[in-house]
């Protein structure tokens, strides 16, 4: 038996906001694959839960007129990884979503929950950082847009005002995916049911001759207390010619600004090596996916 005092079932976004305002200590729960585990471990007690499972509006995935892809925060990982828009336009995210847990977990766990839970190991998050996704947060007074890069403030900490706001959608602008190639690599001890030891997402666009990088975004999960972009390497890559020297530069500079930790899951030394290796591997694959070649 879970230690639950009240459960509520919201049927719309407005309903969620109403329920939040009249139950200030209530917590939002979507798929429950993180929240219920915390309850089982007794890290969360005497909970009041507002379920978001039955809000169809939060599940839609659509292409907006301006080319932006809008993913409802309540879409589960199976829905995202099988969605034709996502598969065609941002295959990196479809692949990342297939790395989460197991099929049964992916059938219920939502992308919004993955983002708001704030775990640095969240599998969908590095790709969203590399795609410069924007988050739509709804409160009583309307909505606000927050770039995902400004959303996470610490382990499990975000700028979401949990007692009055709801993440409703993840927006990926056209400029992030048109003529781009992406790649997400997850490192773990095993393939399924595994918390990421390290995750690396790269999103690149190439110049017309496909021989130079136009712009590159490199994002890591579990390489610092929050998901991180690698600003220094990104600036070094602007206009860089694709050759071995460029990959060497990436390998030499990629650790700048990152703060990998030493834990039972992986030593600091291993994590540093993984960061260097995965950044280059993901960059190479992203270049190929963007139509370039490695000679």
């Amino acid at each position, binding site marked *: *038996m*879970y*230690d*639950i*005092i*009240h*459960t509520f*079932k919201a049927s719309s976004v407005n309903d969620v906001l109403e329920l939040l305002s009249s139950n200030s200590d209530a917590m939002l729960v979507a798929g*429950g*694959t993180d929240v*219920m*585990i915390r309850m*089982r471990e007794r890290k969360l007690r005497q909970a009041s*839960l507002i*379920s978001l*499972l*039955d809000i169809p509006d939060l599940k839609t995935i659509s292409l907006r007129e301006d080319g932006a892809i809008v993913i409802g925060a309540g879409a589960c990982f*199976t829905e995202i990884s099988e969605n034709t828009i996502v598969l065609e336009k941002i295959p990196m995210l479809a692949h990342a979503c297939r790395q989460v*847990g*197991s*099929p*049964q*977990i992916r*059938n*219920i766990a939502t992308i919004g929950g993955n983002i708001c839970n704030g775990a640095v190991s969240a599998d969908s998050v590095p790709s969203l950082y590399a795609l410069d996704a924007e988050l739509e947060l709804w409160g009583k007074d309307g909505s606000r847009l927050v770039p995902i890069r400004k959303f996470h403030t610490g382990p499990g900490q975000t700028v979401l005002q949990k007692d009055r706001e709801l993440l409703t959608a993840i927006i990926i602008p056209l400029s992030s995916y048109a003529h781009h190639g992406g790649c997400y690599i997850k490192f773990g001890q095993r*393939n*399924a*049911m595994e918390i990421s030891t390290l995750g690396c997402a790269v999103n690149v666009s190439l110049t017309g001759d496909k021989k130079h990088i136009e712009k590159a975004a490199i994002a890591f999960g579990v390489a610092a207390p929050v998901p991180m972009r690698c600003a220094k390497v990104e600036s070094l890559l602007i206009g860089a010619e694709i050759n071995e020297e460029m990959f060497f530069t990436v390998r030499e500079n990629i650790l700048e600004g990152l703060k990998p930790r030493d834990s039972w899951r992986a030593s600091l030394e291993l994590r540093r090596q993984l960061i260097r290796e995965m950044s280059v591997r993901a960059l190479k694959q992203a270049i190929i996916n963007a139509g370039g070649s490695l000679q």
Partner: protein
Amino acid sequence: MMKIINMVVNGKPAELAVEEGESLTDTLRNRLGLTSVKKGCEVGECGACTVLIDGVAKNSCIYLSVWADGHSILTVEGLRTEDCELHPIQKAFVEEAAIQCGFCTPGLVLTGVELVNSGKKFNREELREQISGHLCRCTGYENILNALERVVGKNS
């Protein structure tokens, strides 16, 4: 506090009172006697408690019964046809001896049923991924894959 919920369980409407903190595993086992639904890890890792909710495989141990209100649940007990025939997946499990202790079997059978219902065919590698949410501690995975291949394999 107790709440009244309405579900369709194995094709039949069920109205019952459940505790708000009750998992669907407990409701199915203790209130409805559907003990094919196994209690394993109870944190959504082992897949022994897998049921189909509106046709989709989910871990019932981390799913509250109150969330099932208005939804349709299928357990292995609901697979039996009127003339007591086994489901093709169950037959394949028997034929391939894909059962040792049997604890993971109900969950795996339901994932198999979900795969059949998808209408898709899978190669062995894809099947491995599809059953990655089920732990078989007898480690009888090869026979389980053989059984699934018989029904939903690319060459079946």
